[in-house]
């Protein structure tokens, strides 16, 4: 069958960029966002330090050295000082970081997955399924997160796994909401109707047509979720419901430092500073991603 003869002018000018040309302007925008870059650098430094740092330290987190209790920072063998049992603060901080960051990322992964699934199903099917699901989301959201967290924490024996699960359980709702809203509106766009007109399965519609188009808000929500998760874990551990001593976590280190606020303030300052750094780092990163990935700024015409 002979083709309609296309004229040379039908062809768009040769495009040198690979298919990810769509993401180029987003990357450029992101890199111009100074706070986001700062956040990214801070997080990378933290992650690397917490992962590798303890191997480089001569101290263990549980090594008790009663002859060097309450060493102030920057003066002697303990770079950030030591606590009431002579344990090195730096190494405890980094190891606590491993736990807090792990809980943060894992809880984010879990809550994002749950939120995406629920949001997809609610937004796609709508009707009473969607309404029921979203009302459920609203109901859970109406509990203050800390309250929910502590209630759940009081019911289970504390540990890394349980605290991850609990934090995840308090964080999935935002993701579900964002996803549901996006899916509901994208569902009516022509390309989704086109796929439906072709006769694809619901799973295809949800996973291959709609989901790739809402990755941006999901990524942003997930990033902000890490910040939230770290903070929540710190609250829980601080209040004694999370990671239990002697395993260090930034939260329980703060708890530990309470008694010595005036005599050894560094025991509270460093864990607090590092929590702040991690949380604001992820928040800035999330803000930067949100601005960079804003589809309204992509002029594709």
């Amino acid at each position, binding site marked *: 069958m002979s083709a309609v003869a296309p*004229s*040379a*002018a*039908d062809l*768009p*000018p040769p495009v040198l960029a690979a298919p990810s040309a769509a993401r180029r*302007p987003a990357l*450029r925008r992101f890199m111009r966002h100074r706070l986001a870059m700062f956040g990214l650098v801070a997080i990378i430094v933290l992650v690397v330090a917490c992962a590798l740092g303890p191997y480089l330290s001569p101290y263990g987190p549980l090594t008790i050295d009663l002859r060097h209790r309450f060493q102030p920072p920057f003066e002697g063998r303990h770079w950030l000082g030591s606590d009431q049992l002579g344990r090195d603060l730096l190494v405890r901080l980094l190891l606590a970081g491993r736990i807090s960051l792990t809980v943060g990322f894992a809880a984010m992964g879990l809550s994002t997955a749950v939120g995406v699934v629920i949001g997809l199903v609610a937004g796609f099917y709508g009707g009473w399924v969607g309404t029921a699901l979203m009302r459920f989301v609203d109901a859970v959201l109406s509990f203050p997160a800390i309250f929910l967290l502590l209630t759940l924490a009081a019911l289970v024996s504390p540990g890394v796994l349980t605290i991850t699960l609990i934090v995840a359980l308090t964080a999935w709702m935002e993701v579900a909401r964002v996803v549901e809203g996006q899916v509901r509106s994208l569902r009516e766009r022509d390309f989704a109707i086109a796929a439906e007109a072709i006769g694809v399965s619901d799973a295809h519609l949800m996973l291959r047509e709609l989901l790739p188009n809402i990755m941006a808000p999901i990524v942003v929500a997930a990033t902000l979720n890490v910040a939230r998760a770290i903070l929540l874990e710190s609250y829980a551990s601080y209040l004694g419901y999370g990671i239990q001593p002697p395993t260090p976590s930034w939260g329980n280190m703060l708890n530990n430092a309470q008694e010595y606020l005036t005599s050894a303030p560094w025991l509270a300052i460093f864990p607090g500073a590092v929590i702040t750094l991690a949380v604001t780092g992820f928040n800035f990163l999330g803000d930067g991603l949100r601005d960079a990935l804003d589809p309204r700024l992509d002029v594709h015409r």
Partner: protein
Amino acid sequence: MTDVLMVEDLAVRFRGESGVVDAVEGVSFRLREGETLAIVGESSSGKSVTALALMRLLGGPPNCVVRGRATFMRQDGEALALLSLPETRMASVRGRDVGMIFQEPMTSLNPVHRIGAQIVEGLLAHERLSPRAAEKRAVALLDHVGIPEPALRARAFPHQLSGGMRQRAMIAMALACRPRVLIADEPTTALDVTIQAQILELIRALQHETGMSVIFITHNLGVVAEVADRVLVMYAGQVVEDAPVDVLLHLPQMPYSAGLIGSVPRLDDVRRRGGRLAAIPGNVPDPNTRPAGCTFHPRCAHARPDPCETARPALEYVSDGHTVRCARWREITV
């Protein structure tokens, strides 16, 4: 017949993320009193940017640089250099001397203010009227543009009116201060064809009544045939042909104009079913990557390597009131 607006070498350059774009280059024309000038073109032809530039509604440097001269003659003989007026003076020109209406009334009418209030606001800004007198004038204007129950409608919000009604309200706003020139940027594109006919008739009637000049920007050649006295054809930011409407429609000299005219289906074409439209191959060039030489040459059946690919053609004189931007217009028959 006096000239109301004289535009010389208007050029608009935008600076964006992806580089520099010359949205409009070397546009010159004259608008006479009582005349309707149609500016016709497709996307990225620069037709809307031209109007916005004249009204100084584009942003300022460094993102947007406007060059050239535009002289507006007021009723009392005063000549205003539009592009160099201070902003406060320009604000009084807009609405009082030059009115403007747009394609989508929903976006140019403030959705949280009532229609009547928006007209009154314009009146109070430009004329010495008491608020009560302004309100009465506003209702009278709405009536004049054919809105039924105008007193009631004056208290309505934009979303409570139909598309045609909103467009009439926008016309009422634009004409409230009896401007000398009306710039209409695709005013009927978003309307149903029967409503479009009403609005075109309204504009024509108002024009006869007030003697105002109209610059009518559109991509619809049929509308051009209906309303225009003269036509400016724009392509890729330049004027490529300038002629009286009958001359353009029957004796175009620029291949693009002829191509455009040939690609519009007419009602009479129903007889030649089985025939094809004379389509122009290819696409409108992206403003960032305009071809060298004549911007139309990649799509032109009459293009020759020399001079079409090498030199940018200048506007040449064909006959009185008819200019064309084509290096080969004498040799070819379109």
